């Protein structure tokens, strides 16, 4: 489905169109980013995700996010510090290259067909688990010092939602709801998941809130 999004705060009213699929985590990342950048939704329409900005057409969630970040500077999606930026990219890529491609619909269908439905779940859980273990390791060195028992915190900074979070939020949600992953081995990601759940930009972007959502 496609949404026309425009910035209600700026005078120039850039008109962006996002084509997205309610269930796709790639689309979901971009929806969150658009929410964070205060683009308000106008009206919907399909496909996943493609951003149209006048004569520029961009597919791929990472390319779209980087484009949004470069063009619209409000509520930055990346910190200034080069090292922290690199960590954000690393986390994002663990999701987009090591986890997501191995658990998308066509791959899972294939496994289910060739082996079994049980194997499909085991497969998804295994790859997500590996990726999540890598993320726990990666982020521990950065998010660790902000973590306390009671505090809500986000990946690399105390109050900023960053690029890595855009990738992590949908991935963790999917792991829990679709693949029933046991999150007890991933305390950091579990904390992040709770934090994401309380943020309006994330809530509004959730699959179940999308107009093209299909029941069942």
């Amino acid at each position, binding site marked *: 489905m496609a949404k026309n999004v425009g910035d209600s705060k700026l005078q120039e009213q850039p008109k962006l169109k996002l084509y997205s699929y309610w269930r796709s985590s790639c689309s979901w990342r971009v929806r969150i980013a658009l929410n964070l950048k205060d683009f308000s939704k106008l009206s919907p329409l399909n496909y996943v995700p493609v951003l149209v900005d006048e004569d520029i057409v961009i597919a791929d969630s990472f*390319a779209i996010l980087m484009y949004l970040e470069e063009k619209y500077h409000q509520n930055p999606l990346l910190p200034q510090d080069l090292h922290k930026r690199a960590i954000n990219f690393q986390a994002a890529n663990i999701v987009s290259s090591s986890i997501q491609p191995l658990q998308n619909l066509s791959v899972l269908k294939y496994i289910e067909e060739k082996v079994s439905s049980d194997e499909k779940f085991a497969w998804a859980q295994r790859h997500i688990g590996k990726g999540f273990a890598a993320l726990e390791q990666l982020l521990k060195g950065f998010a660790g010092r902000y973590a306390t028992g009671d505090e809500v915190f986000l990946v690399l900074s105390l109050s900023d939602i960053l690029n890595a979070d855009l990738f992590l939020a949908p991935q963790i949600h999917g792991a829990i709801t679709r693949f029933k992953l046991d999150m007890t081995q991933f305390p950091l990601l579990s904390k992040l998941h709770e934090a994401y759940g309380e943020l309006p930009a994330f809530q509004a972007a959730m699959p179940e809130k999308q107009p093209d959502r299909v029941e069942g």
Partner: protein
Amino acid sequence: MDPNSQEVCGSSHSSASTKLLLYSYWQSPCSWRVWFALNLKEFERLNPLHYVPVLVDGDVVVGDSFAILLYLEEKYPQNALLPSDPKGSALNLQAASIVSSSIHPRHLMSLLEYIEEKAGPGVRLLWTENHMGKGFDGLEKLLKEFNGRYATGDEVYMADVFLAPQICIAIRRFNLDMSKFPTLSRIYEAYKVLPAFQASLPERQPDAIVQ
């Protein structure tokens, strides 16, 4: 797998006395991309030694080829790997993502072995042809309108850094029929004569095991 670490330093007309350490594995396309980029940015190798790929720059440690490449691009702007115009930049990132998210993860050795184990021999070939073919189709469509020497024009950019190793591997390791991908075939010929690319070839790495 026997990884290797190599020190590289910035050349005289780039960042003075910049020393980076890259841990890489000669056979990995992820490592390969980073070597290609370091060559393009004119970092010279100093002396060797492991995991893959990991870049150490002072107290900054970065894993993952895409993250490393973006870090290098932001920190060492010489011979830019992303064009300054937003459209060109987005295009390059898109191509890079297609390789790193849609193509490469689907032909990892461990994955192919699993498929062979679970679904029988022969299936593995169909799997790679299918997924690699789809990915290359996507790239062909994306890049078709550009008639430059390389993927997105006449300069080597991020898209090329990802495409070059991927195409080479598709041909060498998977015997992919490239006749269906005229754009990719054409730019691959251009990569082959680039010194930065030649120097990054797996067989030229110190940890290469030549059969």
